[in-house]
Structure formats: C-alpha cells, structure tokens
C-alpha cells in the first residue's frame, strides 16, 4: 500500500481495510474459543456382557479421575469431557464403538477397554481412523507387537510382566514344584506359557498343567490330576464358576494336607472375599495389581485415590459394602487418564490434528513416578513395546483380609523383546 493510497483511500481499499480490521477483532475471540473448547475423550466401556462387573467400576473410576482433572484446571487449561460407549464386551461391538466415538462423537482419543478380544478387534479400526487408542488390558497383546502404532498401554502391566515378576517370590517362598490350573483359552494360555518359563528360570518346575474347558461347570474330575508332589497350586480361574471351583477344591483336599495355593485376584474381582464359599482360600496367596484392602503403609496418593473413587478400606463401595470393586485392575483407568493429560500437555494439544504428535509424546515417556497421578505406584514406560511396567503385589488371605506380603520391583517384570513399534508407520 503506497502513501497515496493511505492519504486518499479508494472504496476498495477501505473495504479491504475494514475486512482486515474485522478479522483482527474477531480472531482473538476465535482463538480463545478454540483453546477453551472442551477436550472430548471417548471411553470404550464394558457396560454389558461378560465384562460388566469391571465396566461398572471402570466407569466410576474414570468419572472420579475426570473430576480430579477438571478441578485442577483440566488439560492445558481446557475442560475435559468423557463420552462412554458400551461395547457389550464383544469384539464386533468394540470395533463399532471405536468408529462411533471417532467418526460420530468426534472425540479426540479413546481409552479404557480391558478385555483382550475387544482390544484386538478394535485396534485395527483405531489405526485406520488414526486415533490414539489407550487400552487398560492385561493380556500380552500390545507388547507382543501384534497391534499398531496408535495403540498404547501406559496404565497397567501386561500378564507376561506380572508372572515374570512374581515367579521368583513364589518359587522361593511357596515351593518349586508347581501345578497350574487355568482356563483353556488365551488368557489362561498366557499364564501357562509365561509362568512356566519364569518358574523354570528360577530353577523350579511346573509339574502339571491342567487346562479347564471354558464351558466347564464342575471341576471335581480334574483335581485327581494334581500330582502328589505338588508344592504350589497356581490357579487363574475366572468367571461365575469360580466359587464352585474353590468349593470343590476345598472338598477335594478336606482337612488333610494341601499344597500352598497361589491365585490371581482376577478370579475374585468384584467378589466379596469373605463369601462363605471361599473359606478354603484362607491362608492362600494372591497376585493383586493394587491391594484391594487398605494397607497400613498405604501412600497418601493411594488413600486420595481410594477416597476419590469412593472405595472403603475393604475395597467395597463406600455407600454399599456389598458392592465390591475391581480394585486390582481399575487403577489403570485413573492412571491412563493422567497419562493422556501428560501426553496432551507435552505435545501442546490443539485438536485432532495433533493425534500423531500425542502418540509421539507418549512414546517419549520413560520414568513415570508415583503420585496422585499414579496411585498404584511408579512405572516405567517402554516406548518400543508401547507398554508400561509397574510393581506387582502379593497378598495373603488372613482372617478374611488380604494382607500385603510382597511388592515386586520394577525390574522384576522386565522381559526381553524384539518388538519395536517405533519402527512401524502411522
């Protein structure tokens, strides 16, 4: 624009100047509107189907974490919303849910699913839609390398790391000759393969592997297959038949000698451990992702989290002591939401255009210290595996209470792997 124009403006230059002034006046408001627009997170929820007991508590945990995040100013100053989508714990519905959250609800990213088959079915769709998919699943599938660059697990350790971490304590304290009883499908097979390997590495031996078909409702005929020299009985039964399993195991051994018993709390999540049918488990040991019952040495972060979710010292809902939580797993939802916050703030999240930058920001995670964001404890993230590694807890059932007897170190669960998601494309 030359001096002449400034001194003697034409109608065209006046119009252009007016438009520019109008744009300049409205731009800050637009930018502000965009920056204060809520961040929308999709939650793939097992509200119905076989995962419903978990789903109920995962929703409650997510809402509690959301409240804490928003009360502290949200993510990078923006409020956060969560949209829950029921997947009926079904792989097909899971994939559909991812599509609905991404394409229709237009969420920024998706998190929350636990059940392996749902995660494995939905992960390819998340990758096609190029949306970060943060799962809270234990199965050895993210770290196995069979998923994709968009799928991450920053909130809970996988089963391979869990059993690898616990095998030394089991063989050194309970016995070296182990019989495993597990459901005859992928979850049980992960335990079978990785625990057998981990026990052998400790100089122990799995003397029998007893696979129970998933349709089984009575277990009596399997117990005679437990070798007499068994020192530890390792069980990972899940589902509604678990009470029958424990009852029949108790009847099988009666009041006579029995091996040490080591189980996964997965069997008894959302189940009252004081249930009369579970008396036989008194004195046995359990893996717990996080101690269901409040321990004397609980950290401030742990009690803060427990109070925020509304869980009493026994692991049940504050308003209903019979409503027992999935405390051993549900911390993963809380911690994943805080990992999302950390990743979004690290990549200066603006909107969906930053989804790839978000994944790269999470891939830059390494040390994840304990605190209110991680009430279960400190963790370390392996970017190549897209998998976090954390502490594990072993508890003993004493007088109807689960008492912590051991906490594994972060290093205990590390295993060698050639998987490298960083070498894969987006």
């Amino acid at each position: 624009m030359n001096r002449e124009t400034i001194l003697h403006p034409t109608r065209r230059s006046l119009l252009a100047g007016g438009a520019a002034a109008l744009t300049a006046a409205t731009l800050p408001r637009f930018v502000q509107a965009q920056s204060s627009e809520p961040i929308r997170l999709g939650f793939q929820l097992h509200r119905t189907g076989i995962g419903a007991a978990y789903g109920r508590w995962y929703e409650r945990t997510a809402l509690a974490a959301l409240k804490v995040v928003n009360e502290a100013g949200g993510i990078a100053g923006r409020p956060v919303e969560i949209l829950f989508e029921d997947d009926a714990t079904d792989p097909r519905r899971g994939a559909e849910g991812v599509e609905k959250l991404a394409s229709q609800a237009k969420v920024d990213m998706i998190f929350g699913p636990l059940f392996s088959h749902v995660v494995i079915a939905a992960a390819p769709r998340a990758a096609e839609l190029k949306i970060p998919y943060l799962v809270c699943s234990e199965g050895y599938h993210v770290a196995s390398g069979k998923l994709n660059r968009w799928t991450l697990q920053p909130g809970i350790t996988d089963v391979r790391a869990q059993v690898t971490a616990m095998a030394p304590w089991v063989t050194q304290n309970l016995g070296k000759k182990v019989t495993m009883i597990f459901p005859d499908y992928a979850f049980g097979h992960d335990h079978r393969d990785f625990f057998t390997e981990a026990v052998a590495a400790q100089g122990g031996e799995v003397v029998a592997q007893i696979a129970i078909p998933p349709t089984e409702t009575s277990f009596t005929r399997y117990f005679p297959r437990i070798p007499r020299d068994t020192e530890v009985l390792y069980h990972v039964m899940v589902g509604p038949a678990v009470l029958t399993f424990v009852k029949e195991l108790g009847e099988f051994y009666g009041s006579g000698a029995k091996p040490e018993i080591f189980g996964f709390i997965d069997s008894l999540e959302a189940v009252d451990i004081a249930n009369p049918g579970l008396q036989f488990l008194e004195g046995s040991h359990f893996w717990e992702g996080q101690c269901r019952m409040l321990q004397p040495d609980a950290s401030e972060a742990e009690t803060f989290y427990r109070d925020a979710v509304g869980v009493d010292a026994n692991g049940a809902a504050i308003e209903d002591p019979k409503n027992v939580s999935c405390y051993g797993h549900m911390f993963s939802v809380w911690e994943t939401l805080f990992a999302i916050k950390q990743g979004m703030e690290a990549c200066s999240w603006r909107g969906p255009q930053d989804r790839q930058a978000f994944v790269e920001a999470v891939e830059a995670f390494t040390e994840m210290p304990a605190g209110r964001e991680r009430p279960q404890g400190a963790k370390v993230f392996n970017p190549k595996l897209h998998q976090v590694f954390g502490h594990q807890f072993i508890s003993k059932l004493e007088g109807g209470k689960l008492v912590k007897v051991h906490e594994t170190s972060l290093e205990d669960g590390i295993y060698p792997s050639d998987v490298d998601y960083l070498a894969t494309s987006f």
Partner: protein
Amino acid sequence: MRMLALHLAVLAGVAALQFVLPAYHHTNAARILVLATYAIGFNIAFGYTGLLSLGHALFFAGGMYATGLLVDQGGWQPWAALLAGPAAGGVLAAGVGLLALRTAGPAFMIVTLMFAQAFHLAILYWGRFTGGDEGFTLSGAARRLGPFDLADPATRYGAAFLLFAAAMLGCLALVRSRTGRVLIAVRENEERTRMLGYDPFRAKLLALVLSGLLSGAAGATYGLMFGYVGGSFAAIQYSILPLIWVLLGGAGTVLGPLLGTALLFYLIDWASSVTTASQFVVGAVLILLVLFAPRGLLGLLRERGLRSLP
C-alpha cells in the same frame, strides 16, 4: 417384473447411499450389508426351507477362519483366500447337513448347535493357531485385493455392496426358480413334496449348502474388511443373531434379511446411546414383534396386501 424392479431399486438405493452417508453410518452400512448377506444365507435354510439351525455361526466363522488363516499363516493371496471362505462354509454345511438332516425339528436345532459349539471350542483349544478367544488381526497387505485396499472406506463399501447384491439377486433368482419352489414346498409340507416325487433330503441339503456358502462368504469378507478374525464370531450369539435379523425383517422374504439386520443394528446403536438398559429395550421390541408381527415386518406387509413379495 415389478418385483424385480423393486429389488433392483433397493440395490440402487443402497449403492447410492455411500455417496451421502456420513463417515460413521457409511461404515455401519458396509457392516450391515455383509451381515445381511449372512442373514440371506440363513434365510434360505430357515425362511424358505424351514430348517431352523442354531449352528450357523459354524459356517460364518468357518469362512472367516478359512480366509483369515490362509492369508495370515498360509501365505495365500487375499483373492484366493477370500474364495476359500465360501468354499469352507459350503463344505462345512454339506458335512453337517449329511448328518444333521437325518433329524428334524428340535433335534435338528440341537445337532446343529452341537456342531457349532464343537467348532467354537476347537478354536479356543487350538489357540496357538487360531488366536483362541482373542483372535488375531490381519495386516494391511492381507487386506488388499489386487489394487483394492479394503481398509479404504469406499473400497470397503463397494466390496460389501457387491457381495450383498450378488447374494440378494442370487436369492431372488433361487426362490423364483423351480428349485426354490421345491424348497418352499418342503417347508410347507415335506411329506406331500415327497409324494409328488421330489427328494426332500436332497432339497434340504442343497438349501443348507447354499446357506453355508453365503454365510462363509460373509464371514470371510467381514474378516478381511475389518482386519480381525476371532473366536467370538463362532459363539452361539452369532447363530442367534441371523435368526433374529430374519425374524425381524420377515422370514421367507428376499428383502427381509437386509431390513431386519439394519433395524436391529440401529436399534442397539440407538438404545445404547439413550439408556444403560439397552438390552431391555431391544428385548421389549423383540417381544412386541413376536406379539404383533410374528412373520416379521415384510411378512406383515405381505399378509396385508403385497402378496407377490418374494
């Protein structure tokens, strides 16, 4: 001719939908078309021949696993593996049919259910190969049919449409043919059909094989389209679903499977977005259907005037 025009118009409408549907419904429509193909297969056995099977998940998952395993572990080209899907469905249906068709009524339901459950358990048992209940994902390369990438939404819709169109027109041709009329005769009165000189066993076996073939084709296509093969598709739920789709749309109608599949799909989708008790809503709708339209929506339409609807 009028009926042919109606069916072609429906196909034209379905083809045109892909240009107007937003992303989420676009993918849903592709899913519905493949699942409706499965329902068309079920309808040939149940709706037209009167064979109430509770084991069709065997054929659907059989096709899915044949294609998925061959392309993932067998090193087959996706095109060839895709053709193995309907072949597997047809062969499995022939095998089951040769044994199960010696029974009828509730016994047929139980025997077909038993075969499907055995297949489901076999998938879980041989998890090392099948991925068990977790299943397995298919790589991008495994989903490319020559120059066509099934991960691309438009290609995916096109593939689903071609499959559905072939199944629907094939079904229409079948039920209007002499063979189709024999199937319907078997459904209406098997003994009378036999007395007229037809072989009901042969007709029922043919219906079951065609049904299995379409179910296998749908399973194979579904696996490649969405990149996942899993044991849950062999569970009893996937034997019940085609029955509900067909009952809702209208058993023994060519368009009923599409209508029923689409309605139930969106009923579940809508109900789960408005209430946590979505299953209650779906159950209530199905009860109302049984009470007021036991022959399904198109069956009701046929009763109320459109008698020539095939």
